[in-house]
C-alpha cells in the first residue's frame, strides 16, 4: 500500500476490522456500507484478498462434500426393519 501516515493508519484500521468479517461478508450478512468497506480494503490488501479468496474456495468445496457422501446401501431398510422389531 502507499500514501501518507493517515492513509496507512486507515489501512491498518480497516485491516484489523476486516479480519473478523470475511465469513459474514460471504454470507451476505454485512450491510451495504460495511460490505463496500471490506471490498475496498480487500482490493488494496493482498493478504486480505488472498484470505477472502481462500475462504470463498473453502466454502465452495465444503458445499460439494454433501453430494459426495452416500449412505450405506440398505440403511433405510435396516432402519425400517429395526422399527418393526421395536414395535413387536
Amino acid at each position, binding site marked *: 500500500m502507499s500514501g501518507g501516515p493517515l492513509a496507512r493508519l486507515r489501512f491498518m484500521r480497516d485491516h484489523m476490522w476486516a479480519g*473478523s468479517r470475511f*465469513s*459474514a461478508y460471504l*454470507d451476505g*450478512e454485512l450491510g451495504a456500507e460495511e460490505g463496500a468497506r471490506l471490498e475496498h480494503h480487500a482490493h488494496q490488501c493482498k493478504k486480505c484478498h*488472498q*484470505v477472502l*479468496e*481462500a*475462504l470463498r*474456495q*473453502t*466454502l465452495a*468445496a*465444503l*458445499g*460439494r*462434500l*454433501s453430494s*459426495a*457422501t*452416500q*449412505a*450405506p*446401501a*440398505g*440403511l*433405510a431398510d*435396516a*432402519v*425400517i426393519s*429395526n*422399527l*418393526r422389531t*421395536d*414395535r413387536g
Partner: protein
Amino acid sequence: MSATFLAPALHLPTGLRARLGGGAIVAAVPEFAPEEEQRLVMRAQAGDERAFEELVRAHVERLHAVVLRLVGDRHEAEEVVQESFLRAWRGIGSFRGGARFSTWLYRIGVNEATRRGARNATTFHADPRRRTGAREAADLSRAPEPSAEGHELQAALEVAILALAPEQRGPLVLRDVEGLGTTEAAAILGLEEAAFKSRLHRARRAVRKAVAPYLADGR
C-alpha cells in the same frame, strides 16, 4: 496430530472415503412436497407405520450424512441413525408443525450423537486432533491410490472437519456442508443465532487454514 500436520499424506484419500462415504449408492430417495410431508407426518402421528417408513426413506440419507460428519465413524453413524429414527417414531406425537420435520429429526440426531459422545469419550469428546490424526493415518495407509487435486482437497476437508472441536463442527456441517440456513441450523443445535455464527466463523477459519495447501494458490 493436527489436520495441518497430516496434509502431506493426503494424496491417498480412498481409505478416508471408505470410512466416511464408501457405501454403495442407495436407491432413489423420495422427495416430498411440504404438503405431502405434512400429510405423512399427520398419518404417522395417528399411528400409521407405513407413513413413518416413507419419512425414513426420504430423510435417512441426509441424516446419515450429517451424523457421519459429527461422529466421524461410519459404524457409529449408522447406530446413531437407527436410534434417532426409533426416538423419532416414539416421539412423533410431540412433533409440532411449526418446525420442519427435518429440523426436528436432525435435532434428535444431533442430540443422539452428542449423547453417545458424552458416553464414549474416545469417539466424540476426546481430543479431536489426536483422535482424527491416528484414525486418518491408519485409513490412508491402507489404501494407496493416486488421486486428482479435487480429491485431495475433499480429503483434506474431511480431516479438517473431524479435527474441529465438536461445538464448531456442528455449525459447519449443517450450514456449509448440508447447506441449511442459519436459522434452521441454529435451531437444530439449540443455539442462539449469534452463538451459532460465532462458532461457525471460528470453524471456517480453522478449516480454511487447514486446507490452504490444497486451494488453487496454496493460500
